[in-house]
Structure formats: structure tokens, C-alpha cells
């Protein structure tokens, strides 16, 4: 026993020396810098960075390859909170929950505190994740083997039940939104039956919808729309700074909430070790946990504890993702498929070897994650003040810059035209949901977990009949999940009954604009219900259940809304907040924003993505921002050159084919971007 411990410590020490070897440490730092950069830019993230790096790592030694790849991955979760806090647009899919409390703080001029808290929570979460990974090495394989498909199913159901918490007191809307998310997750080929669900003969939809597009559409586009429509000159008031002092105050808040930090980090690690549960939901689940457990909270209006929960869990996930990856070669999350690719190239075989003869590799993973988090956070602290200036850039400049990168980033999902359509569709859905007070997080939760639940459920029934329900772990977790939903339901009914007592007469009103989304969702559910009846039972079962649930929730919701009841409509918390509709000309400016977006899309179709972005920026800055040419030209030309170098020369993007390129083939061959 002692010998084994000694060898483990020996391997850990050896790996530390290996990672600190200057020739490799430099790669770690380069990876971190690149990761920070990708994290800050909405739409770009770890997956793009890793696919970019992978070929370069072929010729490196394996430790250097791990250092640069994992360094990049870990660093994205440090910096992705910066745009979430400052602009209200998530840097990566894992930083969406940070917006809820981070962005209100920035608007109140407390960006420094929000950033400080998010950086420190992120670092602590990352380090806790690495420690958990290190500690679990001896028991990793038995641990993963002990968790069967029914247990995985139960964990996903528990995650989904948190929709009740994330609905901000609007349970019916929350459930319907989750149902909508699950329904969307069934788009594509059902591998189990070969049936195409809702693909309408379109190849693009075969593989389903990318979560990045859902997140960018739901959260980023509506936020920019409202920023534009509010008529504000800039995001935060003049003088917003992220001073050292404010950041340290944020970090102290994290220490004050150390138990929340620890709990959220552990949630992050354990959930991320379930294959399929990734960044897109982990932050929300931790956030929901905080909402349920923290007392005297003011979530959604700038409560720093919301940031702590979301950020620590989001960073801790990297350690958790590694568990099934190294123990069994099963990617713990989407980026891990690329890490496995690097393993393959370097002749590293996941499995028992990693936990015995190749412990040096495994420990270098642990150290890399921990160090990347520390270095990444330190750099974020250093440069936060510079970033904070983003919130004071004039709206006429910041909107075209961010909007362009969102479109370019979204296109990296599949490098197909469908990416733009999908982004646009979810942008509209997100905006209407935000306007009519619908909570958006349940949709993301349903989208990610719904697909897993469907698969795990069928495997469980096929393999174990109904016996799986009575496995102890499954029984406990399912009971907790159901209790959570029932409790939320009971609270909602109690509120409704109390409310009815106060109302003298019941009067119905005609549907109005604010009922729009409820009606639309109801129609979608009914249409999907009818549309799915021709499929084999296995393909239609989940969609049918979901459509019934969604339709009933929507119908009840509509009934209450039309009855003039304030019961469910009275949303609170930032998750569904309508915002500054009172600003004069709000809807007129929203329409203008939509036209600009449509114009950008048309431009992409006509002259190609990069030229369209270039033209869009110039036009927007000039016509909307009324900026000087001396500012417009350097900014837009610099941006275009940078994007060209990054995406044409480094990423080798397969650009969307444009009309001009079709008409003038030699121009396409010569420029390769049309």
C-alpha cells in the first residue's frame, strides 16, 4: 500500500517537474493566452481552439501537447465571464448564467466587483476540479463502472427538475420552455430508428442543432437588440472601472461564500464526469442550486453569489470531464473528443494504463488544469481594467463589432449556411421570450438534457425492463427530482388560490402581444404532436409525451394570462426581465436592429461573410453611430485583416459560397473567401 502511495506521489512530483520544464511551460502559457482570447470572444471557445491546435501538436512531445491544449481549454472558462458581465453576451456557452447577476452589477457601475468575484470563483473552481481529479485517480475506474445507464438517467432527470427553480416563479412557462428545448433536441436523425425527425428533407438538420447556436441566439442577439433599442449611448455609465480595489472586494466576497463555492465546484466536477453533460447546463444547475440554498438572496439583480456559483462550477468541469476521458476513452464533454484525438496521435491509450504505467501523463493533466486556471486568472485580474472600458465604448461601435463576431463565430459550428438561419431563429425566439417574460434557461436545460434522457431511458428499459427504477441510487435521485417539481407546483397553486381570493370578478380579455409566445408555443406543440404520429413508436414516444406536457402547460398559461390574472405573469428575477421597454421609440429601434441583422445576412449571401461583415461595420458605424471616418476606417480595416488572418490563414474556414463567387468564379479562386 505504502509503495503504491509513494509511486503516486512520485508520479505527481515528476509530472510537476515535467510541466514546469521551461520548454513545456512556455506551451502552457501560450495555450492559456490563446484560451483567454477565445474565451472573451462570443461564439469562439475551446472547441475551435482545440481543433486549431490539434494538428500543431502532432510534432510536439506529448506533455507539451497536453500543456498547450488543456491550458487553452481551462483558460477559456476564466475569461468567458468578461463579455457576460460587461456586455451581457456570453463569452462561451458556459458563461450564460454569469450574465444574470454579473451584467446588472456592471450596469450599476460595479463591473470591478463582478469581474473580481467571477475570476476568483473561476480559479478556485478550476483548482478544486483539478484536486478532485487527482484524488479520484485510484478509484476512478471502479467509480465510473459503478454508474450504470439508469444512474446516468436519474442524474439527468434531477438536472432537468431544476427547471422548477430556474423558472423564477413562473412554473408553467418554465416547464413549457423546457418541453420546447427537449422538442428541439429531437430534431435530426434518430439514430435508434433511422427516422428523420423534423428535418424537412434538409441535410443540415440531420445532425441536430448545435448548442452554441442556441445559446448565442437565445442570450446574445436579444441582449444586443435591447441595448440598441434602449437608445443608451453606452452600456455602463461613465466612470465605470474595474479597479484593483473593486476586484479584490469581489474576490473577498468569494471567500465569504466559501461553502457555496465548494458546493458549486463539486456540482461542476461530478456532473461533468457524466458523458454528455457539459458547459451549456452546468452553470445553470449550479445557479439553480444557489438559488435554492442561499438565504436572503436577490438573484437576478446583481447578487454576487449567483456569479460565484455559476463560475466555479463552469471552471470545475474540466477536471470532471477528464474522468471518463482518461479512465475509459469516453469523451466527458465535447472538447474532450479533441483531447482524445491528441492522445491517439501521441499513442496514449486511455484506460488502465493511464492509472498505472502512464500516471505521469495523468498527473500532467491535473497540473496543467490547475496551473492554467491560476495563470489565466492572474492575467484576467491584471487586464480587467482594460476590458472594463468595453462597457463604455459607444453603442454605435460596439454593436457592429460584437454582432459581426457572433455571426462569424456561429458559422464555425458547422460551416454551413444553416448556422446563420439557426442563429437567427433562436435570436427571434430569445427576443420574444425575453419580451413576453418567459424564462430562457429551462429551454437550454431541456435541450441538452432531453436528448440524453431519451437515449438513457430507452437503454434502461431495453436492458433492465422496469427493474432499473428500483435500483437504490435511482430511486433516491428520482424521488428528490419529483419532490422538487411537486413542491414548486404546490407553491404555484397556493399562490394562485391566494390570488383568487382577492379577485372579485373573473373577466377574460382578448389575446394581446404579450400572449404571443404562449400562443406560438401552443401551436408548435400541437403541430409537432400531429406531425410525429407517423413515426415508429420509439421515435415518437418522447416527442409525444413532451408535446402533451408542453401543450397542457401552454394552454393553462394562456388561460391564466387571458383571465387577466397576474399570477403567472408576475415574473421576477433577471431571467425573464423585460427591461427598458419604456424608452421612447423602443420598438421602432428594435425593428431597425432587425433590419440591420437581415441586411448583414443578405450581404453574406451576396458578397460572402468577410466582405459583408466589413461593409456592415462601416455602414453601421457611419449611419447609426455617426462616427468619424478617421475612426471607422482604422477599426473596420483592422478588424477585417485580423479576421482574415485568423480564419482564412489559421483556421482555414470553408467560407459560405456567395452569389458573387458563383457568378465570377475566378474571383472566388483568387480570393478564396467568396
Amino acid at each position, binding site marked *: 500500500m505504502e509503495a503504491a502511495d509513494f509511486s503516486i506521489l512520485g508520479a505527481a512530483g515528476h509530472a510537476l517537474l515535467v510541466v514546469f520544464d521551461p520548454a513545456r511551460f512556455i506551451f502552457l502559457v501560450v495555450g492559456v493566452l490563446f484560451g483567454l482570447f477565445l474565451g472573451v470572444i462570443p461564439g469562439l471557445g475551446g472547441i475551435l481552439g482545440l481543433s486549431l491546435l490539434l494538428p500543431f501538436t502532432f510534432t510536439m512531445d506529448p506533455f507539451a501537447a497536453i500543456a498547450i491544449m488543456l491550458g487553452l481549454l481551462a483558460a477559456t472558462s476564466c475569461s468567458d465571464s468578461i463579455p457576460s458581465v460587461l456586455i451581457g453576451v456570453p463569452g462561451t456557452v458556459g458563461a450564460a448564467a454569469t450574465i444574470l447577476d454579473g451584467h446588472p452589477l456592471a450596469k450599476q457601475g460595479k463591473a470591478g466587483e463582478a469581474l473580481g468575484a467571477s475570476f476568483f470563483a473561476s480559479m478556485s473552481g478550476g483548482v478544486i476540479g483539478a484536486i478532485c481529479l487527482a484524488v479520484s485517480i485510484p478509484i476512478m475506474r471502479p467509480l465510473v463502472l459503478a454508474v450504470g445507464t439508469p444512474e446516468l438517467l436519474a442524474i439527468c432527470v434531477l438536472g432537468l427538475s431544476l427547471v422548477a427553480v430556474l423558472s423564477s416563479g413562473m412554473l408553467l412557462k418554465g416547464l413549457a420552455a423546457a418541453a420546447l428545448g427537449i422538442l428541439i433536441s429531437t430534431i435530426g436523425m434518430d439514430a435508434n430508428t433511422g427516422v428523420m425527425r423534423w428535418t424537412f428533407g434538409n441535410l443540415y438538420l440531420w445532425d441536430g442543432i448545435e448548442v452554441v447556436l442556441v445559446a448565442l441566439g437565445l442570450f446574445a442577439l436579444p441582449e444586443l437588440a435591447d441595448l440598441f433599442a434602449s437608445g443608451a449611448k453606452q452600456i455602463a455609465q461613465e466612470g465605470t472601472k474595474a479597479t484593483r480595489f473593486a476586484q479584490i472586494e469581489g474576490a473577498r466576497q468569494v471567500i465569504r461564500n466559501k461553502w457555496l463555492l465548494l458546493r458549486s465546484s463539486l456540482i461542476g466536477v461530478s456532473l461533468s464526469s457524466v458523458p454528455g453533460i457539459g458547459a451549456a447546463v452546468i452553470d445553470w444547475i449550479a445557479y439553480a442550486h444557489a438559488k435554492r440554498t442561499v438565504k436572503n438572496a436577490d438573484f437576478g439583480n446583481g447578487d454576487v453569489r449567483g456569479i460565484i456559483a455559476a463560475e466555479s462550477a463552469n471552471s470545475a468541469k474540466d477536471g470532471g470531464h477528464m474522468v471518463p476521458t482518461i479512465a475509459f476513452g469516453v469523451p466527458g464533454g465535447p472538447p474532450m473528443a479533441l483531447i482524445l484525438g491528441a492522445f491517439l496521435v501521441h*499513442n496514449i*491509450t486511455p484506460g488502465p494504463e493511464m492509472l498505472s504505467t502512464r500516471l505521469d501523463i495523468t498527473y500532467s493533466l491535473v497540473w496543467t488544469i490547475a496551473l492554467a486556471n491560476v495563470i489565466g486568472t492572474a492575467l484576467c485580474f491584471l487586464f480587467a481594467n482594460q476590458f472594463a472600458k468595453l462597457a463604455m465604448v459607444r453603442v454605435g461601435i460596439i454593436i457592429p463589432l460584437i454582432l459581426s463576431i457572433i455571426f462569424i463565430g456561429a458559422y464555425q459550428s458547422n460551416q454551413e449556411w444553416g448556422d446563420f438561419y439557426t442563429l437567427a431563429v433562436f435570436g427571434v425566439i430569445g427576443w420574444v421570450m425575453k419580451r413576453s417574460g418567459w424564462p430562457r434557461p429551462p429551454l437550454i436545460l431541456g435541450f441538452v438534457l432531453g436528448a440524453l434522457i431519451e437515449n*438513457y431511458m430507452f437503454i434502461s428499459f*431495453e436492458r433492465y425492463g422496469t427493474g432499473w427504477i428500483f435500483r437504490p441510487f435511482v430511486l433516491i435521485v428520482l424521488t428528490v427530482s419529483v419532490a422538487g417539481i411537486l413542491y414548486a407546483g404546490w407553491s404555484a397553486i397556493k399562490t394562485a388560490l391566494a390570488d383568487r381570493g382577492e379577485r372579485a370578478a373573473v373577466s377574460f380579455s382578448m389575446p394581446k402581444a404579450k400572449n404571443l409566445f404562449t400562443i406560438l408555443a401552443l401551436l408548435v406543440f400541437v403541430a409537432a404532436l400531429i406531425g410525429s404520429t407517423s413515426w415508429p413508436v420509439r421515435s415518437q414516444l418522447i416527442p409525444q409525451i413532451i408535446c402533451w406536457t408542453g401543450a397542457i402547460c401552454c394552454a393553462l398559461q394562456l388561460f391564466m394570462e387571458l383571465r387577466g390574472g397576474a399570477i403567472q405573469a408576475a415574473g421576477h428575477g433577471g431571467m425573464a426581465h423585460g427591461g427598458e421597454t419604456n424608452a421612447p421609440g423602443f420598438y421602432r429601434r428594435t425593428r431597425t436592429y432587425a433590419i440591420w441583422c437581415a441586411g448583414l445576412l443578405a450581404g453574406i449571401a451576396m458578397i460572402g461573410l468577410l466582405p459583408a461583415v466589413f461593409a456592415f461595420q462601416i455602414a453601421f458605424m457611419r449611419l447609426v453611430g455617426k462616427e468619424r471616418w478617421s475612426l471607422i476606417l482604422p477599426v473596420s480595416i483592422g478588424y477585417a485583416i485580423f479576421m482574415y488572418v485568423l480564419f482564412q490563414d489559421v483556421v482555414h474556414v470553408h467560407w459560405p459560397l456567395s452569389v458573387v463567387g458563383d457568378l465570377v468564379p475566378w474571383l472566388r479562386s483568387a480570393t478564396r473567401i467568396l
Partner: protein
Amino acid sequence: MRKIAALAAALLVGGMATGSAEAEDVKEFYSSNTLTLITAGGAAGPYNILARTIEPYLRKYLPGNPNIIVQAMAGAGGLTAANYLYAKAPKDGSVIGITLPTLALNQVFKVDGVAYDVKDFNFLLSVQQEPIVVGVSAKSGFNDWKQVVDKKAVLGSTGLTSNTSIVPKLMNKFLGTQFSVVTGYQGAGNIELAVERGEVDGMAANWSGLKSSQPQWLKEGSFKVLVQSGLTPEADLPNVPTLVDIAPQDKRPVFEFYGLSNALGRVFVAPPGVPEDRVKALREALLAVTKDPEFIKLAAERDIDPHAVEHEDLEKLAANTVNYDPAVVSIVREAIGAE
């Protein structure tokens, strides 16, 4: 500007010269053009890694030594890449691709979304024919496929349309086995995990993939291969029967068709209409790569089987698949679709 002029000249020459162009033109074309290598599947997928491994050697052997860009084009089970190469990619030899073994099978099954005719592609070369093996864990107690005729064995699978499900379904239908196929696992890794955990008895798997991901199973003998799907036995599975071997005479065409359809391997193609001399140069260069000792060594480290099948054989394989007895095709299709 010089580049554009050279390009225009090359295009002109390529368009006019039919089979009589000089080797000099090829060299000039590839020295002034980048070669894009499209791979079906994602950025970390085996096709992409194959492309990245081949890329430096292809550059070395192709006249003009062009820059090579590897672009992953995932989507629709390889159809996105195949359709792109067929219709949209430039037909001057500046774009080639690696497509999936199902290239011909998808066409003969008339899968929705197939927008190509496999016969028109310029086949260059293929590596890594991917036979499917059906195997079980040692602790499951099965030693021979015949035991599965009498007793049910549970296999994990990703889905009905994948090989992990097709092979056992064909065996059930035509050999009387009782494989119970549990579908829904996300990727081969998750099925392997289910085998290890005892949730399922075994799996139908891509042999090269399995060797790469679970070497210790084969070393320790904890996984027993019952049958293989290739038309000839694999070099490292000499004692494992092929499906054609064990099938009764009248059922053999079914398994021959299946073996045939999978034999294309990871196939390099150029779009239809690429000038003949460039196609020839690409074929020769790729073949030279697969014989380069340094490449062979690197391929072994990355679990790539460098054994090449040349274009004449690929054309025959594709044609045989597409022209196979429609009666057999529909039987197989039906067997896969529903039991």
C-alpha cells in the same frame, strides 16, 4: 496578380487539354495552387487524423509540392462532404476529399440526401478497409457464434443505421442468432464502457477502432471476437470465421453484399471532371505515400493501416455494389430496417 494569371492559364489549359496535358502543367498547377483535403467527420475524427498524417508526405510526392489545407466537413453521416465534393467543389484538382466507406451503399440504399452518382467520382486510393467484428466479453460466457443461436446475447449499439446494429440484425435474420441489440449508446466508447461494466454482453465493432481503443481487451483476452464481416479474414484474425464462411449457400449473397459495401474503406476521391493528368498525379502521389517507410512507421503509431487499395479495384467495388442484385439489396435493406 501573377498568381491570378497563372491560375487563369492553368484553368484554360485544364479545360482544353483532354488527357494530353504534360506533366509540366501538373507541376505548375500544384506549385501555384493550394490543395484542399476535405475530410468527412469532425476535426478530431479518424479521417481528419488520417489526412493530417498523410498531408506532409502527399506534399512531398505530389509534383509542385503544394501547400495542403485539411478541412473537416462533418455532417449527415458523410453525405455533406460527398455531396460537396461531387457538385460544389472546384473541378480543377485543387480540392480532393476522404469519404466514408458507405459512399456506394448510401446510393444503392437510396438514402435521402444522396446527391451524387458514385460512378462519376475520380477514385484515387483507399486505405483502412474497415471490417466489422462481433465480439463478446469473456465473462459473458459465449465462445462461439453458434451459442447465440440457443441463448440470447445482449449487444450495445449506437443506433439502427450503424454497423453496430446492422451486422447482428443480419445475423439474426439469416443465421438464426438471438442477438438482442440495445440501441442508444452515444459512440463506440460508451458501448465499450457498457461491455466493461457488464451492462451488455458485447458489441459489433469496427475492428481497427477496437484495436486502437481497447488494446488491453485483446491482450488480456477479455474480449472474444466471434465473427468478422470482411470478405477475407483479417491478418490478425486468422481463426475467426467470416460471415460468408458461416452462412448457408443460399444466404451468402446477403453477406457478400454487406462485405462488399464496406470494402471501400476510407476512400480518397477527386470531384468528377478533374483533368485526367492531375488525377493521375494525385493517384501516383498517394500510392507513393503509402509505400514511404517513414509514413508506414508513423501510421502504425496512429493506428492507421497503410495498406492501399488502388483506383481500378475501387471502381470495381463501387460498381459491383451499385449494380448488385436488387433483390438481395432490398432483402438486406429490409432486414436492417425492421426485424
